[in-house]
């Protein structure tokens, strides 16, 4: 979930014009190293010490932003800020985010078809498609775009059929 607070921080981060790779590296580092997040979140550890850690580990460009997050005690919502930031970047590039859940991985040309269909439908230039395999769908696929779910899986069809049969 993206809160208004996370969105505000993301907007600031975006306005700095920091390279996407730097932001990406920072994100990965913080996500993979839970001890680091714990240290930065810990209120007992002094600001100076935290600043030293940040300076030592992160790129100069983003360090000051992280320090502000620590000062404002909001480093805990960093992943939310990242989600909001990614959305902002996509929006700026006139792209759309989608998630495809499948049972059998689609061929490259099929993926292209899906992408071009989405581009046309939502009037965007590109699609950032996340792929996930889920055998419980039995067959078919489920596509999420924003809040909308396109369900063409056997599992979905079965549950729809169940609803029709019991008249609910």
């Amino acid at each position, binding site marked *: *979930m993206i809160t208004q607070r996370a969105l505000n921080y993301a907007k600031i981060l975006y306005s700095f014009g920091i390279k996407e790779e730097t932001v990406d590296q920072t994100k990965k580092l913080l996500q993979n190293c839970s001890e680091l997040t714990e240290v930065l979140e810990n209120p007992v550890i002094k600001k100076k010490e935290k600043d030293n850690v940040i300076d030592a580990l992160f790129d100069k460009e983003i360090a000051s932003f992280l320090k502000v997050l620590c000062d404002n005690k909001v480093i805990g919502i960093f992943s939310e800020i990242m989600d909001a930031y990614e959305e902002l970047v996509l929006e700026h590039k006139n792209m759309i985010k989608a998630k495809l859940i499948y049972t059998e991985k689609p061929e490259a040309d099929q993926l292209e078809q899906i992408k071009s269909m989405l581009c046309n439908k939502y009037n965007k230039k590109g699609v950032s498609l996340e792929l996930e395999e889920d055998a419980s769908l039995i067959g078919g696929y489920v596509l999420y775009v924003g*809040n909308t779910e*396109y*369900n*063409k899986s056997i599992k979905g069809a079965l549950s729809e*059929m169940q609803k029709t*049969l019991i008249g*609910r």
Partner: protein
Amino acid sequence: MSNINQNDIISVLKSEIQDYEIKTTVKETGSVISIGDGIATVYGLDNAMYGELVEFETGVRGIVQNLQAKTIGVVLLGSDYGLTEGSKVVRTNKRAGVPVSDKLIGRVVNALGAPIDGKGAIEATDFFPIENEAPGVCTRKPVTVPLQTGILSIDSMFPIGRGQRELIIGDRQTGKTSIAMDTILNQKGQNVICIYVAIGQKASTVAKIVNTMSKHGALEYTIVVSSSASDLAPLQYIAPYSGTAIAEFFMKQGKDVLIVYDDLSKHAVAYRTMSLLLERSPGREAYPGDVFYLHSRLLERSCRLEEEFGGGSITALPIIETLAGDVSAYIPTNVISITDGQIFLESELFFAGIRPAVNVGLSVSRVGGAAQTKAMKKAAGSLRIDLAQYREMEVFTQFSSDLDKTTKDLLDHGNHLIELLKQPLSKPLALHEQVIILVVANNKLFNDVAIKEMKAFRSDLMDYYRAKYSNIIEEIETKKVLTDELIEQIVKAAKEFKK
């Protein structure tokens, strides 16, 4: 059901499954971010409407109650078992409503219109939204047709008309539900459909009420909507709206409906629970700011429609329980101001044996006068004034030996009137009985009967009329007018009986 063959069912199922067409379903989904106390906060569902039904992945449904920038607040209409953070929620694009049909009559249903009396499913012919706009000014007709409660003190002094909203208010154990029940029992053969909405009541109380109804044959024209104390607050909150939706279904067919909300104090409490959990600001007595609108929009739906718009009516009898007779509390004052009058019941009167314990001074019916039959209007003419004079003089009762004759007579007449207005439970009086009793009382023919013997005297007198003067009874019931000659006849017959 027994004549349905097993093979038939299987073949129907098989063909249903074979013919089932697999379509790509497009749904708007959101996910639960927090859940507790029957309230779920859902992220996503940006296009959900206020009041829309949403479905959780366990099949439980909910109503959208709060729309915020990023999240929506949903009240659950069932158990939250199995729902966790991240559970999927789907829009249904439908507003909450109840299935309605003529087959609801005689049934006990829950707040969602599902049967709870174990008599099988109810086939629905239509679906009515629980929240509906009240009829406009041009579609309404003045209240002119009486709705007889069968209770002498009410029909004579605070008459209720079809399409009226009359509040029944009083402390606990003062006979509020009994008045509503007697009114329902008296609608037998009157072409009125009754709906009893129980909100936050004990299930045993509801069972008792249903029992009484079926014992007196009242269940044949009554629907009971029950949301008992153990139901979730959102269900208690929607129960009166569901009841009204059912009433509207019948009203639109041109039928007269009587709906009892028992009681709206508990309804307000359920709404307060829900509002506080939805983090809406508490106001006076911790009720939310829109608690007035909660009841006004409900009661505004009761009305009498013009013929061209269906011509039916909904008469509402909301019940409010006060604490220690305090009518100036928040909810009582609200509902008093919304309704077209109130019947105020007092514990003191109740325990003094005056039952129904109607306080004649504080009770009023704002439109009822127009909805009284001419016969009743004429017969009841001076009753209120006589009782008011009696109450004024009542304090002097202790000096009875020193009083002059006029005062003594006045007190005596008052005592007899009070005795006459006492009426046992489930014994509604017909129009002719009420009119005859009032005419005889106005002519002070009861005054020489000992108070203790009044009850027996009254019933013997009525038997006498039934046996010898059925023409009088017939004239009152058919013409509903009380001519001077008729009064003379009634008085003559009473005098004859006394000899």
